[in-house]
């Protein structure tokens, strides 16, 4: 993949609002943001209800994903353009999710909702309706999703990239600071993980930095480009943002997102945890 194939500008989106075959989808942490105003023609996916199994902690299965996209009017050959708040955290999560189920043509709106708003571009509360489709998903692509046993096995052998804020990495905070801090799991990080906050990859307006800048950031943080990489955060959304950078913008092979992330790892019995700003030993 490359920047040209996976990222579009706000201007491109504005110029293509009426182009057939392009489906704009908003995905936000604040699932009410869309209802207050969205880009004209965009539909909404709710990451808590549409994309999660409502009983077990896991994603909706292939059949459920097919039913969801069919009902919302997304076709297999549509170009899906995702955007959202929080510098595209959940839009990047949805991007990774669409790739997991094999959608071919997915793009992120660079800068997401924030860039769109800071540019004073138009938002509407007009409802969007699309004709139903018959969507067919692929089996999950396990080459981009990491599970806990692989993560434990990766300590000291693969690149582990912790993309949370430095205070969460060190164990001084347990959640991003716009959320209450009381949590069940232990604080800290996976031993040997490099701390590269997701935000290092983004400019203040939410757009991604240049490929040269990005490459330098991860190199300086100790990412070995010859090794496989697993990115994680707290629940797998910020690490989707970093997965997007490493896999789709920089074209690295073998990059996985660990969606269990710290809320799973920090609750596991018997696994090693490192506290403080140092990476820790294997």
């Amino acid at each position, binding site marked *: 993949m490359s920047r040209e194939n996976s990222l579009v500008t706000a201007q491109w989106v504005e110029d293509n609002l009426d182009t057939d075959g392009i489906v704009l989808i908003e995905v936000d942490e604040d699932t009410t943001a869309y209802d207050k105003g969205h880009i004209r023609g965009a539909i909404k996916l709710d990451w808590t209800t549409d994309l999660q199994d409502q009983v077990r902690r896991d994603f909706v299965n292939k059949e459920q994903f097919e039913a969801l996209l069919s009902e919302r009017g997304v076709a297999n050959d549509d170009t899906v353009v995702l955007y959202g708040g929080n510098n595209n955290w959940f839009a990047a999560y949805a991007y990774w999710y669409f790739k997991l189920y094999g959608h071919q043509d997915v793009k992120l709106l660079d800068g997401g909702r924030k860039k769109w708003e800071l540019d004073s571009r138009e938002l509407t509360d007009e409802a969007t309706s699309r004709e139903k489709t018959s969507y067919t998903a692929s089996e999950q692509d396990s080459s981009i999703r990491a599970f806990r046993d692989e993560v434990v096995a990766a300590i000291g052998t693969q690149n582990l990239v912790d993309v949370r*804020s430095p205070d969460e990495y060190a164990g*001084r905070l347990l959640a991003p600071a716009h959320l209450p801090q009381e949590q069940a799991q232990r604080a800290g990080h996976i031993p040997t993980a490099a701390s590269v906050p997701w935000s290092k990859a983004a400019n203040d307006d939410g757009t991604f930095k240049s490929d040269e800048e990005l490459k330098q950031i991860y190199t300086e943080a100790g990412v070995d480009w010859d090794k496989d990489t697993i990115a994680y955060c707290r629940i797998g959304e910020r690490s989707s943002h970093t997965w997007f950078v490493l896999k789709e913008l920089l074209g690295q092979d073998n990059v996985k997102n660990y969606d269990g992330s710290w809320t799973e790892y920090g609750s596991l019995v018997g696994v090693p945890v490192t506290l403080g700003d140092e990476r820790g030993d294997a």
Partner: protein
Amino acid sequence: MCGATEGGLSLDGVNVAKEAVIQGQVLRGGADGGGEPVGNAYVRLLDRSGEFTAEVPTSATGHFRFFAGDGEWTLRTLAPKAEPVDTKVVAATGSVAEVQVLVSA
């Protein structure tokens, strides 16, 4: 540093004793009643090294809230057609730091 000020964001449902809350309002044009609330601003919380920690959009009334940790933080406010504004704030567990951010008119 003080408790929730009159007219500030409601703390209903927040366990203030266990959180280091930073909250406030973004205004355009003037302080203390003279400014208009900015409902489409973004406030980011930077740690003492200047690293991004969190970001929230303001509410329709220009309000925002963070659950930080003890220590000194910087709020960086981005609003349409205004220069970014940095505001230093000190947070402590068990208290609420109230901040008013003014962006250029």
